[in-house]
Structure formats: structure tokens, C-alpha cells
């Protein structure tokens, strides 16, 4: 195996790795948004519960 094919393989691996990292990061951001919604829902429920108690 020559240097050139070794280099090409490394470059290809690097590209696949980079693309996957980017996709995973996007996914993590999406997941964070869902968790954000979950917190919002919990907050809303808590407020309603408090309001009911007060009434």
C-alpha cells in the first residue's frame, strides 16, 4: 500500500467522521429544544396547579 492510498483513506475517514459529528450536533440541538419544551410544559402545569390551589 502506498502513501497516496493511505492518505486518501485517512482523508475519507476524516470527512465521514466530520459529517457525522455535524449531524450529531444538530441532533443534540434538536433534543435540547425538545427538553426545553418539556421544561416549559412542566412549568405551565406547575403554574396551573398553583393557580388551582389558590382558587
Amino acid at each position, binding site marked *: 500500500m502506498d502513501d497516496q492510498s493511505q492518505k486518501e483513506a485517512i482523508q475519507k475517514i476524516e470527512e465521514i467522521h466530520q459529517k457525522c459529528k455535524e449531524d450529531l450536533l444538530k*441532533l*443534540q440541538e434538536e*433534543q435540547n429544544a*425538545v427538553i*426545553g419544551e418539556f421544561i*416549559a410544559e*412542566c412549568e405551565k402545569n406547575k403554574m396551573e396547579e398553583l393557580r388551582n390551589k389558590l382558587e
Partner: protein
Amino acid sequence: MPIGEKFPDNIENTANIETLPSEKESRKIESLPDVPEFAEEKISDLDDGKNEIENSGKTEAERIQEMYQPNASLSEKYRKLIGEFAARSREIADRAKTGIKEAAKGVVIGGMLAATAGIAEGNVLEKPSGKKQEGVKIEEINTNIAVEKSKVKIEEVEKRENHASEIAEKIRQELIEHYSSKEYLDRLIVEFGGKEERAKEVQLERVENLKTVEIDTSLSYAEFADKIKSEKTNADGIKDIFLITGVYNEKVRVPYDIDKKIKEAKILINQLKTIKGVKITDEIKKIAENELDMSLESILRHEITHAVTGEYGEMSNSSIEILKRSYMRSGNKADKYFGNPLELLERKKAMDREMEKLGIKKYSEEFIPEKHYHEVMDAYRQGLFSKDAKEFISIIEQDPNVYKKIFDEIADNKNIDSESIKPA
């Protein structure tokens, strides 16, 4: 051949032997990384990324659920959503891993990774001649890979821990230097009404506190947050959901991966800001807007500085009074934390250090309101101060004379007739 099926006895193990480069070839490629090893590292990294999504989604959702409804289990809707994210992350990572294995297989047929790729896909390995060969001791290779992978993981964690502990030790040394200085002693002598011997005793005690305080950076954020939560050291609502950056309670504890957690928290806060009905405190907003330069280093510095006066740091009544009078109440629960004189004192110490570093005023110098106050405000507007110093400026009354009183009359303060206050 499915994994675990017995191999015929007459098949020889050729996977690694066939493609070992000759000595000449080895010299030729020594400047390039070994492809199988390189691919293994990348795969291991992707596994980490995938695991992070799976684990953080699950633990974060469960933690929030636990906070709001401790006795209920996670709702079906969110369980499903989090499950979907985990599945998508596996899919993305697996697709990439296959691509990486293919790329590596094409280059070094007999490499360990290529062997695994062949086995995982149920394929056989191909010799350069084209003759099919099924001769790999699967268990041995898989065990080796597992061992190598755990080694890589352990090394990564150790590397991060070492990085945090190196920074911590550097800060400890800097602080020891400052608290051992003549300038500091001179300030203490003034604070102790000219009693030099007493001031020297206090100085020695504080330097000793710094030298001996245990600094623990061995935990990841997840482990750290669970521990703190179980100790109930910090349980004040929304702050608990997002971030507990560090603690001083007998010893200094800061998670080694706090920088990463801060980055994640910023993303989360920015998402939360777009959701109607979610109330985010100004303090939390500041994190997302980079107004507070929170970092492993600034957090360590803050917590280690707590150790100077010890856990039950005692302050003279006059210092308590000065700081309490100078604090601008916000009217919300943050007052409990920021209004604590010991927390105010930590931020005052940061101001002392940074005014000197920025060339505004030496520690031993008298505070001149007409000069120094304006220089402080200029530096503040230019964003030159750290998180602690910025907080000091935003919570202390904007009055040059108040500044003068604080910087001229308080060193770090300690007095025999003092009232004891515990840091938050």
C-alpha cells in the same frame, strides 16, 4: 459466519500476519497515522457522541421530571421523543461507522479494524490474491478491541481530569503567592488596627488553608450534579435545572467537563428563550448571551478563593455591615445567594486582583473615587472583567464612595468577635 459459531479447527489465523508491512514499508509510512488505528479512534469518538445524546436526553428528561413530579414517571410523549433521538443518533453513527470501516478495509485488509468490519457484516476476509479466507479468532480480536477502546476512554477521562487539576494547581499557586505577599500583610495590619502579630497569624492561617484545601476535579458533570443534588447543597429551582458549576463545602469540587456543560447550557437557554411562557431569570440569560465568561478556570478560581477564609469564614461585623449596606437588592431569590456577605467578599477579592492586573490600582493603593471608579467603569464597559468582578459591579451600589469604603476598609476580613456566615 455469525459471531459465536465455532470455527473449523483447520482454519489458520491469518488476519494480522498477512498484511504486516515490511520494515521498508514501515519506514515509508511512518509519517502517516496507522489507518486501522486512526479509524478506531474516529469510531470511538462517534460512539461517544452517540452515547452522549442517548444518555443526556434520558438523564436530563428524568431529572426534570423528578424535579417537577418526583413521584410520577416520565410522560409517554417525552419518553417516545427521547427514544427517537437515541435511535436517530444510533442510525447516524452506525452509518458513518460502516463508511469508516469500508474506507479502512480498502487500505489494510488484515488490520484489526478491517477484520472486525468483515465479521460484523457477516463477511469473510479477502486475501490480496482474491482467495476467500475465514481465519480470524473472533473472540480474541473482539476482546482486544474492547480492551483498547476502554483504554482510550480511560485515557480521555484522565486527560480531561489532569487538565482541570493542572489549572486548579496553577490557581492555587497564584493565590498562595498573593496571600503571602507583603502587600496583603500590610492590608491585614490596617484591618487589624495595627496589630502586626495578629495580622501575621491570620496571613499564615489563610495561606495554610490554600495549601491544604482538597480540590476535586475527578467527577464528570453528570456525576457531580447527582452528588450535589443528593447532598442538597444547592436546590434553588431553575438554577438547579441548568447548571451547578462548582461547590466549596469543606473541599473544592468542580466537574472536569464543566466547559462542555456550559456550552450545552447555552444552547438550551437559547432554545428556551424562544418558547412562550418560560420565564428565564436575567442571570441565566447572561450565561447564554456570553455576558458571564464562565469557564473551568474562572469557576475554579472562585471556589478555591472561598477556601482562603475556610468553610465557615468569619467576617468582622464592620465588614458584614459595609457589604450588606452596599448590596443592591433585586427583590428575587437571587438575593439570598448574592446578598450573602461571603459571596460578596469573593467578588470583592476578584475585583482586587483584576484592578491590579488591568493597571487600575495596586492592591496596597488607596482607592481614589474620582480616578479609580471611572477607570473601573470604563473597563467594565469594555468587557475586561471576569464573571465574578462583573457581578460585583452589577450588584454593588453605583457610588464611588461606597467603592472606596469597600476597597479601603476590607481586606478579606477576619475578627475574633465575628459573626459566622456560611458560604452558599
